[in-house]
């Protein structure tokens, strides 16, 4: 009466879960491909109607537009691809310095939120809440139109440029700050500073190792470090041949380094904006270290600074680094807003190129590739850094 056949034969294929899993995937893939092919088909039809082809040869044509500020030589009769490279270098100049400034601001503000000074804590709260609740673009407009153009504007053309605490000047042509000279002696001094910094780092490592393994006090090494620091400070102040900006005839400013107002505004806006987010990350990171860690470190006789450096910070960094990664990516992405201020970053040269050539499809592919690559590089670097600070487990 009973038939004992293999159970897999009994199940018809339309009730077999495994078949359905494959069928659903094929169906979804087919749907996506269908929609994609309709869209791309439309695109080629529309492009054909407009009389355009799809290729990248236009990058070899003459750009013919001007780029306000460059760090590599560029002329208007250079090729489009070179214009894009120049714009990309401007973006790099913006985001790399932005990372440094935003981190500095963020770490300072994050630590300030633990201060026992009521005024500092409240000011810090105001900074974070104001910056995070106002759109970045509005902040950038504020920096350029109110702060920098406001500082640079003179009541009459005969007035001298605005002085910045005596160390620099600002006028319509830009912001002038002191900058090291470029003579052979100055470069040698700079090289000396770099070598000295490496030497100081090695001495510090040596001292830490001695202190940890031999329990030595490391007094000799401490004196060496102090000597290096004094020598470094002297070289920094007098060896680099600082060029001070001076007001010449006709109220023009010469000497020092000229920074365009647009660059200064975008850099300030991005750094303060990202800095507020980093401050919150740093605050959360330090809060995540339990109070017992502090107390244990203090009980072992470490003073506040050492407890922070040796006990709390290494643990806080594990929480901080992954979130920092996304803030750096946001900074890189937000740097495209430089377009609205008039700083010629990659997106701005991209848009000019697109407007002139009308090659929307090719250009959007280049754009996607560039920003995805930038984010990939940031993530890779931060992941390396992350692995270095993560908990070492067996």
């Amino acid at each position: 009466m009973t038939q004992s056949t293999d159970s897999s034969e009994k199940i018809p294929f339309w009730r077999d879960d495994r078949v359905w899993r494959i069928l659903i995937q094929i169906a979804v893939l087919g749907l996506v491909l269908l929609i994609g092919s309709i869209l791309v088909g439309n695109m080629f039809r529309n492009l054909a109607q407009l009389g355009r082809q799809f290729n990248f040869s236009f990058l070899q044509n003459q750009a013919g537009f001007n780029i306000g500020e460059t760090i590599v030589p560029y002329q208007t009769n250079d090729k489009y691809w070179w214009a894009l490279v120049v714009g990309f270098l401007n973006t790099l100049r913006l985001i790399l310095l932005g990372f440094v400034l935003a981190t500095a601001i963020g770490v300072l503000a994050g630590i300030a939120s633990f201060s026992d000074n009521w005024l500092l804590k409240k000011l810090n709260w105001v900074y974070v809440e104001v910056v995070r609740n106002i759109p970045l673009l509005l902040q950038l407009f504020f920096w350029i139109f109110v702060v920098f153009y406001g500082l640079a504007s003179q009541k009459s053309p005969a007035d001298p440029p605005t002085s910045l605490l005596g160390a620099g000047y600002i006028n319509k042509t830009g912001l002038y700050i002191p900058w090291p000279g470029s003579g052979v002696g100055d470069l040698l001094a700079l090289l000396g500073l770099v070598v000295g910094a490496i030497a100081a780092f090695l001495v510090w490592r040596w001292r830490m190792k001695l202190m940890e393994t031999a329990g030595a006090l490391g007094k000799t090494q401490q004196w060496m470090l102090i000597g290096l620091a004094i020598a470094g400070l002297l070289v920094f102040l007098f060896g680099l041949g600082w060029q001070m900006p001076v007001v010449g005839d006709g109220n023009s400013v010469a000497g020092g380094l000229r920074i365009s107002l647009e660059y200064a505004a975008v850099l300030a806006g991005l750094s303060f904006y990202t800095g507020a987010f980093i401050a919150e990350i740093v605050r959360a990171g330090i809060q995540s270290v339990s109070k017992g860690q502090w107390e244990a470190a203090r009980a072992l006789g470490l003073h506040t600074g050492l407890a922070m450096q040796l006990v709390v910070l290494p643990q806080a960094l594990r929480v901080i680094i992954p979130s920092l990664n996304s803030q750096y990516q946001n900074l890189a992405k937000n740097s495209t807003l430089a377009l609205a201020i008039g700083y010629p970053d990659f997106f701005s040269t991209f848009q000019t190129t697109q407007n002139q050539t009308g090659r929307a499809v090719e250009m959007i592919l280049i754009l996607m590739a560039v920003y995805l690559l930038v984010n990939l590089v940031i993530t890779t670097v931060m992941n390396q850094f992350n692995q270095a600070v993560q908990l070492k487990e067996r």
Partner: protein
Amino acid sequence: MTTSFPPASTSRPPLAQIGPVAWVRKNLFNSWFNSILTILLGLILGNTLVSFVRWAFSLAQWQVIPANLPLYFVGRFPASEYWRIWVLVALLAALAGQTWGILAKTAPRLFSRPVLIGLAIAALIAVIFPTPLPYRLLIIGIEVLVAASAWFGWQMASKVPSFGKWLAIAWAIALPIALWLLLGGFGLRPVNINDWGGMLLTVFVSVVSILLSFPLGILLALGRQSTLPVIRWLSTAYIEVVRGLPLLSILFFASVMVPLFIPSNIRLNLVMRAIIGLTLFTAAYLAETIRGGLQSIPRGQTEASRALGLSTPLTLGLVVLPQALKVSIPAIVGLFISLLQDTTLLLIIGLFELLGISRSILANPQFIGRYAEAYLFIGLIFWVLCYAMSWGSRRLEQSLNTTH
């Protein structure tokens, strides 16, 4: 065996241990470093405040704001149809008030002190703001409406348990009514969407974009969690590519590429293209937010519902998603706040939202150079909106927390 207690002191403690002097000493001057810091910060702060007040009362010309108030709020929406905006605002105020009342049903008091202070400040601004008298009365009327419907909702929530469900349906009905009031048609004079501007456009674009991004965002979040590799790869690829690109490039894509993707006989206006761009962008972020919520639901929930015999779609729809969405509401509010801020980027593709309209006002020779006044005003609007929402979402997080 007499124990002598110290005599009970009736004199007040010395001023150096309690009171303002002690507070100042403890919080501002407790070490030499803090003293220097306090003095330095105090000097900077005082200097800034004095020069700001001097600027605000002598140099600044605030005329740029009251003279253009309609532009800031509704752009070039026809003046004869302003009543429709007021009706819409009143409708939304009534619904929002009742929702607030329901959410606060567990609170001991509906009108707590911060709420009363907020209402008072809003009323004060409405009274002193230099607008025609009818507008001031309308603003105060709307505030009273919010407070009254909040009280109504609070009362109803305890009496009628299903009140929340009815309110959700009312919200769903309010949406088409809002569109009808704004766009016209069906008996109302049609208004061209290109005439919208200012805050109306900012709020409309962000609300519509987040609503439209929900279906795609939920699908992507589920897809990324799926055990089917093809679906998982496709969802992950979409989410990661969109999250890796700047919003500006997506808006550029929407304004330049979308017209190429659709048949050439269909024309989309700029507002629609902007909404498409923002929706595609927000969906990727929303997916990650919802994924966070999905991951917080314990496996036992899925297993229990499978054991009850629910199929996978029913398990997702009835058990997992409602819980996951509820958990991620605060994060979704955060996403909406950043979306609201991101709508300022629409000025770059040529729309006159709040920041864009102020740019065009500042280009008017009459108001040239009045950047600080106009930007401070818009900054204040954005700040109040965003701060109120994040405060509300923190409160919501507390009231939604049903774990015991």
